[in-house]
């Protein structure tokens, strides 16, 4: 297992380096000149050149890349072209919204989806199974922002129990306000995420329920739950965990629409602003951090699968 961890960590590092090269180059392929974003009306070609020099986009690409990687190595993300403020602290500040939002929504989605999906498989031929199928299908079809607006309408505008949006000025120093601000966004993201998870849990469970070894276990006298616990859950968990990893990664940046609906200062809106302004350091910083997060989630999900499934751990076992 140790060897596997080392190898898997090396793969993570390698992918990260490759990803930073790709994202750096892709960014430079975008049409438009970041220097324009900096200048006011009537800028002369000299001023444009000066602005390019100031932000360093007049230098050759390899030099720009080396500069950026050099900064990253010392955990600096550089300064925004547009605001001249450092990018790193803003990313940290926005992670304090995005990470709790993503993780809480994820946990809530799993807590809802696993039992519901399991039962839906177990009772697949009853009205309950059919209902879950229909509702989860609907949940996948509904756009997250629409669900968010509906929840705002009910809980903020009608019932007045929760804020419609925003994040407290003092952030987590006022934990009650911060938690209240995140409840509706978390529920919105969680419901959408749960809808697709339920279907994965259900189908994974159905596969296991139909398997020979489970039938044999029942035949040998195990109760349904006993057989399921000993022989079923692990098998069903492997595909679900890999889907979980993907879902978590998607939500991390995909929450941008939700951030806009709920006026949250998260990572997604920072990225959108950066792209609109051609602010390379901001875009690179956010994408680097999120790429890193996605890779770590993938890493954890792979490790979790190996822990769950001894077959993957078998000597030389590769997935």
């Amino acid at each position, binding site marked *: 297992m140790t060897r596997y961890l080392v190898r898997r960590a090396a793969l993570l590092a390698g992918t990260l380096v490759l990803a930073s090269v790709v994202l750096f180059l892709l960014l430079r392929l975008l*049409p*438009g*000149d970041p220097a*324009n*974003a*900096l*200048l*006011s*009306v*009537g800028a002369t070609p000299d*001023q444009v050149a*000066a602005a390019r020099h*100031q932000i360093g986009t007049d230098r050759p690409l390899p030099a720009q890349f080396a500069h950026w990687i050099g900064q990253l190595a010392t955990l600096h993300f550089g300064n925004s072209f*547009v*605001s*001249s*403020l450092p990018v790193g602290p*803003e990313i940290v*500040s*926005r992670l304090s919204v995005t990470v709790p939002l993503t993780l809480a929504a994820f946990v809530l989605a799993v807590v809802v989806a696993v039992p519901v999906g399991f039962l839906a498989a177990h009772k697949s031929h009853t009205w309950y199974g059919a209902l879950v199928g229909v509702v989860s299908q609907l949940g996948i079809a509904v756009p997250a922002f629409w669900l968010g*607006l509906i929840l*705002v309408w009910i809980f*903020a*505008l009608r019932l*007045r129990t929760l*804020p*419609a*949006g*925003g*994040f*407290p*000025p*003092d*952030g987590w120093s006022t934990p009650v306000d911060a938690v209240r601000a995140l409840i509706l966004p978390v529920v919105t993201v969680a419901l959408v995420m749960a809808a697709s998870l339920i279907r994965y849990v259900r189908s994974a469970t159905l596969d296991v329920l139909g398997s020979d070894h489970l039938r044999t276990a029942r035949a040998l006298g195990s109760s349904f739950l006993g057989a399921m616990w000993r022989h079923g859950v692990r098998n069903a968990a492997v595909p679900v965990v890999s889907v979980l990893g993907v879902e978590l990664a998607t939500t991390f940046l995909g929450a941008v629409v939700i951030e*806009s*609906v*709920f*006026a*949250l*200062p*998260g990572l997604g*809106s*920072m990225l*959108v*602003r950066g792209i*609109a*302004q*051609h602010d390379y350091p901001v875009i690179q910083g956010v994408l680097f951090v999120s790429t890193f997060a996605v890779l770590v989630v993938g890493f954890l999900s792979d490790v979790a699968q190996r822990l769950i499934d001894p077959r993957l751990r078998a000597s030389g076992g590769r997935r």
Partner: protein
Amino acid sequence: MKKQRIALLGAVVATAVALAACGSGGGSSAGSPAADSNAVVQIGSLYEPQNLDNTGGGGQGVTEAFNGNVYEGLFRLTDDGKVEPLLATGNTVSPDGLTYTFTLRDGVKFHSGKALTSADVKYSIEKVLAPDSKSARKSSFPEIKQISTPDPKTVTVTLATRSISFVYNLSYVWIVNDQAGSLASKEDGTGPYQLDGWKRGSTLTLKKFADYWGTPATNGGVVFHYFTDGSALDNALLTNAVDVVTTEQNPDALPQFADNPAYKVSDGKSTTKLLLAFNDRVAPFDKPQVRKAISSAIDNKKLLQSIWGDHGTLIGSMVPPTDPWYTDLTGVNPYNVDTAKSLLAQAGYPNGFSFTLDTPNYDPHPTVATFVKSELAKVGITVNINVITSDQWYTKVYQNKDFAATLQEHVNDRDVVWYGDPDFYWGYNNPQVTDWVKQAEQAPTEAQQTELLKKVNQQIAQDAASDWLYLYPQIVVARAEISGYPVNGLNSQFCAYGIKKG
């Protein structure tokens, strides 16, 4: 999307103006007797600052939050457009109109505790004019030969040419502490509030400055809440999370406030004009008859009504009613399809022609483009709508002037003078107008300046230099228990020190 639009306007087209046009023009200025001077006012806005320095690309957002609140100028512009002394107690001008001497107010302190001196004023003006300055108004300033500080209370500025707008232009120069260093994420001004915190992407908090030289704010501080989505902002107002919205950009949202006694909707004065700008250099738009024909073929009234309902104004030229040289020119090129057709025939296009309309991809431009297309179809002109991003607009239209016609909003006041610049993107070239604009700037009196710019305004309307579709409304929505807020928000400033809550 809306935010992006303003970012473009702030940075590029019309350039965010920092007028100190404050003073509580609006709301119910009667105020409530029960107003709580310690209450914190929650302000909702769509325009978050990029950074906190208006010479460093802070944009419209920092003007809104800081102008008059955190920073003050030597002069301020009142709501009705008059220039008043603020940090200067007055000024004298030499007979040749080139040398201005300003006397500074006594007892003014920066938030850091330092007393205001003439060196700070010199530093602040130079900061706006510096080569790396991104100040939107940099190009409006005349060439300055010299700034001298004979004593700590006196500043003398010598200009290379006469400039009637000089004092007006000074009203948006923030006076900053010359020792403050970078102001991108901090401030050191003389205003009634000082910065308490800025959580990027979310809120900016101002608290009262205890040692303020003037009348203290009538509230206990303000928090600006920033939104990227207009509906989210409206929801915040509906749930009392914010007390006032600096400018309502969502026409559909108005009825829910207008019909509710808990809120007050104020219609202020705007300077934002929506233009169908032709490239006057190229055929067929080099012919005034063609431009006039198009102006007459489009029913601006119907357009405005369909977008803003009963809000907004028709102007018929570049000058909004708040500029001193406004005259009503809506009659020069009135809506008349028959006139349009005969003008086209005169110009040699009896069967019309087709052109490409470069249309920014954010509201309201795509809607307007569709309307223009259907109106012009009635006179035989085919419009090909080409949707572009704000960035492409800047490069293609503004820089390279590679376009036939475009839609764009221009936010500034007093920006009719751009028609005097033949190199501006729309390429209107009338030497007479160029001359009048130049003379106006060097005019010895405001009366003469006004007279000349009125002529400019008339001439560009006669020539249909562009088609001025309409003037945006400026709508402030607030909870009924709030009073004393500015409603005109003339150039995106929002002075908060007169707001009463309670």
